[in-house]
């Protein structure tokens, strides 16, 4: 459903992406791997129109949305859990979840079931949450837009191991319900447990891609590109 071809992008004069090709089919879980600063977040920002790409195309269900306004991209079915959480500090937890929600499968109750901690803190202001709580809220907020493709940029950063495990469980569940997921994370091992395909980028270019089976079969991929 998401199809990215030849995407290039730059921050001012410094070019970051040099032609990214990437696609995610319905119900598929794809990971975007790469070391720090290789352009993963930049790829996501370009897809969402938060950064205007300098070239290439972004299509969602065949519709060309290259460089479109972010709300149009989101409206086409993408839900974003951004790097650095970016929750709304002056809204309560509950309002954070409701503000941008759309009708669908995910409801407030569903999110609270998924993250009981958020229910406890539902009247807290966003800026009064711990780092981990904010992360949960960011995921919940994206789900509340009922996307068909969830994009998670470092969703488990700064999370305690137990919570991190919860998130993996949650993603696995989303997958089983037929949702497509594009996920960026440092924990390659955890990702291989449920992802279908992997795309590795280095210096703004795709340098390797393959299925989970491929990655397990060629252990040097991890060494060469990810150094784990």
């Amino acid at each position, binding site marked *: 459903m998401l199809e990215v071809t030849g995407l290039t992008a730059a921050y001012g004069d410094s070019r970051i992406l040099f032609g990214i090709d990437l696609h995610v089919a319905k119900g598929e879980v794809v990971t975007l791997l790469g070391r720090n600063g290789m352009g993963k977040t930049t790829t996501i920002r370009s897809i*969402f129109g*938060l950064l205007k790409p300098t070239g290439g195309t972004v299509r969602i269900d065949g519709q060309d949305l290259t460089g479109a*306004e*972010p*709300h149009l*991209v*989101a*409206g086409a079915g993408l*839900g*974003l859990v*951004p790097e650095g959480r*970016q929750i*709304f*500090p*002056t*809204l309560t937890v509950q*309002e*954070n979840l*409701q*503000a*941008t929600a*759309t009708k669908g499968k995910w409801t407030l109750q569903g999110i609270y079931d998924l993250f009981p901690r958020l229910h406890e803190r539902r009247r807290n202001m966003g800026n009064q949450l711990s780092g981990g709580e904010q992360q949960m809220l960011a995921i919940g*907020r*994206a789900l509340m*837009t009922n996307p068909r493709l969830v994009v998670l940029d470092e969703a488990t950063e700064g999370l305690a191991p137990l919570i991190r495990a919860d998130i993996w469980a949650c993603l696995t569940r989303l997958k089983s319900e037929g949702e497509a997921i594009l996920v960026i994370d440092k924990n390659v091992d955890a990702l291989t447990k449920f992802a279908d395909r992997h795309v590795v980028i280095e210096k703004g270019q795709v340098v390797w891609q393959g299925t989970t089976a491929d990655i397990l079969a060629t252990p040097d991929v991890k060494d060469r590109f990810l150094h784990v």
Partner: protein
Amino acid sequence: MTNLFILQLLNGAQLGILLFLIAAGLTLVFGIMDVINLAHGVLYMIGAYLIATFAALTGSFWAGLLLMLPAALVVGLVIERLVIRPLYARSHLDQVLATFGLVMIVNEGVKILWGASPLSVPMPELLSGSIPLIGPLQYPVYRLAIIAAGLGIAAGLYVLVNHTRVGMLLRAGATNREMVSALGVDIGKLFSLVFALGALLACFAGAIVAPILSVDTGMGESVLILTFVVVVIGGIGSIRGAFMGALLVAIVDTLGRTFGPILLRYVMEPSAAGQTGRMLAPMLVYILMAAILFARPQGLFGQRTT
């Protein structure tokens, strides 16, 4: 003395309500869109000129008011589109400079269109006259009507911002525009709406004072600073703050001017009291603001942000 006190309290309330109507738009645009709009005062002026024109055309205050509202909305949308929108991503000082330019343009434009002499708007028949209060004291019905209308609008705004989805989005957009947009909301449209609403409120305020005050080119400026004082005292972005701030400023100002010299006479001789009173009266609002900000640097209802 108590009669005078009650009368002045009413006067304070009426001025406060008026300030609130103007300040509400400013604080919304400021708090939510993070735009410092110096041209907010001229919107107030435009409201007055619009009703003066429409009332003269139709011969009726009410018809004038009715025509003024959509016209004001259009003015707001046009200004937003032409000047404000390119400034969203810019620093506050750039906004100050550009909207300062806008003030000059509008002031001069109004002078070209309507001339330098003040215009006047007749008081609507229905609301003219005074009702007796206590003893010989009377209070103009029109001013009571202003108080009532302002209270109604205040309540409506409070509900809008704090208890509706639109309100949530507004507050969310205030801190992170990009993220709201990435979650599927057309923030541009939302902001246009906020600005137009703010413009409408300011124009409305200008329109309803037109029958009491003269309509002239300086009216926007004189009210602008006072409005900023109100917004800052109340805390930027807070509707409740704007309301309390407006009432506080108005009542302190009104009562202070009347009773300040009287009180001073208790502590110093009459001529010195008169002198000091005269010096302090215009400072009163500023002293109030400085004192409040000293105690609460983020205003009465502001969020502390570092």
